[in-house]
């Protein structure tokens, strides 16, 4: 059964229907503990069907190409119990051109993935042969077709080229883990930089610096910033807002952060990992300003939630999740931030984020990789210490935003300096 037939079959009982076909190919090379371990290839496809029957939504999916008819039947059956649908599927609309496919990505032979991984590995080993290194290089090419009963019929082709390198250094019972990775829709992987950045983490962590429990300034690196962003992004999810779960629900137009802080959701950046011309529901993607100079300016919506909330879809369907998240750069370099800190902590990565009451903004996390700053200098690694506070409180006490943004997954952020955060030392 073909996509068109599935749509036709669904429309015999449904008021509206949508069929999405997705297929992808992928190739990867993985090193573990200094050794090339595995080369993988994959092919997969799936079809998902969404129907609106008697004003309610039903949804099913399958990876079995011979089971399209039963999948349509299940979606129709599920609609009896589904959510109220006060929306319609969108008709055709062009949307802005966004570059998401680079033909070079899938032309990369397996041997090259193996070689790039090997190069990153050797770089770390050359710095310190005691470090056990793991790395992965991969590419993925995805093709989508989305058709619906409003006449929409769009296809898209995306590529993604990724590399990551990490290492474990064991000294007695002290175990240090550090690593970096990067994903981009174009084949632009700077393996040398990834390796060197990981080495710089190991260098900063060579010594362990004692820390005592007190409130102190914290510099979140472009990767550490997720401690602040995780709660905020949950809080601007249109569904959490509509349900009243988000502490930001009634704060649109209010100042929620220091004026230096601006945040956008931007699916229009060429080759960024979450960029695309249309979202998963066929709505053109766009650039959404979430926080402008400290003021909350928008929430993110998909079709279903927007209809309920009396808003319009922001191109974040299905699920109201952000695409690429961009923190606007400020004026202070990382070196200046550190230099101006008499006693503080640099946070690179944490453990346990999401375990506390993250919707409320609370965080209480273990510093997995962080450094102590004394008299403007990084003096060593912080061990067995926790960071606790509330994101919505911390955002108002941002003292500086960095001038050197870096991509980490689909987030692009500079370092962020927060005035006072509670640090609890283990020993």
């Amino acid at each position, binding site marked *: 059964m073909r996509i068109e037939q599935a749509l036709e079959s669904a429309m015999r009982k449904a008021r509206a229907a949508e069929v999405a076909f997705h297929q992808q190919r992928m190739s990867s*090379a993985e090193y573990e*503990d200094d*050794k*090339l*371990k*595995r*080369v*993988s*290839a*994959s*092919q*997969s*496809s799936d079809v998902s069907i969404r129907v609106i029957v008697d004003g309610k939504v*039903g*949804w*099913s*999916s*399958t*990876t*079995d190409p011979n*089971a399209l008819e039963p999948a349509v039947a299940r*979606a129709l059956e*599920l609609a*009896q*119990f589904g*959510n*109220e649908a006060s929306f319609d599927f969108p008709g055709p609309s062009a949307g802005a051109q966004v570059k998401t496919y680079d033909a070079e990505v899938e032309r990369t032979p397996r*041997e090259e993935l*193996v070689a790039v991984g090997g190069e990153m590995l050797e770089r770390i080993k050359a710095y310190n042969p005691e470090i*056990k290194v793991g790395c992965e290089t991969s590419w993925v090419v995805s093709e989508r077709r989305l058709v619906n009963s409003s006449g929409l019929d769009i296809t898209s082709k995306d590529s993604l080229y990724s590399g990551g390198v990490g290492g*474990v250094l*064991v000294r007695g*019972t002290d*175990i240090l*883990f550090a690593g970096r990775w990067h994903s981009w829709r174009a084949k632009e992987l700077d393996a040398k930089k990834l390796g060197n950045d990981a080495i710089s983490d190991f260098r900063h962590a060579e010594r362990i610096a004692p820390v005592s*429990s*007190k409130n102190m300034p914290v510099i979140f690196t472009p990767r550490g910033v997720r401690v602040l962003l995780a709660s905020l992004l949950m809080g601007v999810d249109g*569904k959490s807002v509509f*349900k*009243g*779960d988000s*502490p930001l629900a009634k704060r649109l137009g209010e100042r929620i952060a220091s004026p230096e802080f601006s945040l956008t959701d931007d699916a229009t950046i060429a080759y960024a990992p979450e960029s695309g011309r249309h979202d998963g529901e066929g709505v053109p993607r766009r650039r959404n300003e979430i926080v402008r100079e400290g003021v909350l300016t928008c929430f993110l919506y998909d079709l279903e939630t927007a209809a309920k909330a009396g808003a319009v879809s922001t191109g974040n369907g299905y699920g109201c999740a952000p695409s690429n998240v961009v923190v606007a750069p400020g004026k202070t370099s990382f070196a200046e931030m550190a230099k101006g800190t008499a006693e503080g902590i640099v946070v690179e990565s944490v*453990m*346990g984020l999401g*375990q*506390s*009451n993250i*919707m*409320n903004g*609370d965080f*209480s*996390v*273990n510093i*997995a990789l962080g450094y102590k700053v004394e008299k403007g200098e990084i003096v060593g690694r912080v061990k*067995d210490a926790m960071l*606790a*506070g509330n994101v919505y409180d911390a955002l108002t006490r941002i003292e500086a935003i960095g001038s050197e943004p870096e991509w980490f997954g689909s987030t692009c952020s500079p370092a962020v300096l927060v005035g006072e955060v*509670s640090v*609890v030392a*283990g020993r």
Partner: protein
Amino acid sequence: MRDQIQEALRGAVADYAEIRMERAETTEISYRGREIDYISSSSSLGGMARATVRGGWGVVTFNDLTDLRSRVSDAVACAGLVGREQSELAEVARVEQVAAPPGMDRDFRGVALAEKQRTVQGYNELMLGFHPKIQTTYTIYRDVYRQVYFANSEGSYFEETRPDIGVGLSAIAREGDLVQRAHESAGRAAGFEVALGLEAKAGAAAKRAVELLSAPPVQGGTYTVVLNQKLGGVFAHEAFGHLSESDLLYENEKLRELMVLGKRFGSEALNIVDDGSLPGGRGTHPLDDEGVPTRKNYLIKEGVLVGRLHSRETAAKMREGVTGNARAVGWRFPPIVRMTNTYIEPGGASFDDLIRDIELGLYARDMIGGQTMVEMFTFSAACGYMIRHGQIAELVRDVVLTGNIFETLKNIDLLANDLAWADGVGGCGKGAQNPLPVGLGSPHLRIQNVVVGGRQ
């Protein structure tokens, strides 16, 4: 299926090759507040061909089943790019078995969607109506019926059925800006009976969420902590269990030194077990995803490290016996070393014995989550009670425990006689493979000198 996959493996030019196919049907219903948030049904069919050549692995996943032979030869080609040494896989007996599905009092595939929906809705309404301060809920039902078909180039063949069903009940209470959440769950490799009769759990979640609104955050510091069974189970799994997974160790001499068998890890009262053959466990199945029978494996016995978990490759390379712990979360992933049902054996003390001598301590209950980075662990209790002068005192919130596993295991100084299992709807994540059904069990435990995070 059998003839098709065995035929495809014939003549594979590799040291070892296998095909694992999976068919799965999943139903999910979730409520968020009064409304259904998500109701969906999915079916999945796909497979993986895996081969090893000179010690290197080639892995090919697919859901286009038209030419299995070419999938195998592609896996062999991938492996050929990797292999530089000698393939080592522990010898195992050839298996040939079509396992009977685990017992299901009521096969959930035969339960009408309307009944599943009504059941979940019932718990959801119960939580919502419990108290005016209950602002919303998150209630989830999930059943998966998974059938696995496996053949390898050594002539083994098996089929297994692995049902998994779970219900998660989260109540969210609010007062002003303060939001508190409490969670209860049930889950097992069994039938629809698991989803029935959970009214008391729904009530408990709602009650605790409301109570937490008036609980102060715990004061950060170092305490004597008593863990309840659920949290003890998470601790055994997250903090210690992952270090027993030999794929972490077998190529890393330094980590092997840390985990040398015979080394003392705790007091004589401490016994930690992983058992994939345990009847009725959430992580139970007869064979692992390499066709190795599961069994009871002691990890720590009388305080001493005595064993670890293996795949065929790690067992061969570490010159130890197979344990039946190579598991894959689905057809898109290769089997890796995973836990099954992991638990701390009970001791002889009563709960009162554990708290009686504590002047100022913390009784930490249940879990929100846990995470480890090798020897460092962090886990979040759903709530805690202060222990003052040997008595359970006030409720506290935001209880996050952290520490070094080696020191913390040594600091377990008393175990109660009340082993219980924490069965949930989620599962264990390792790499990209999540969620894998696992069982977690423990008695009440007392641990000295635990760092508790919190604001000063």
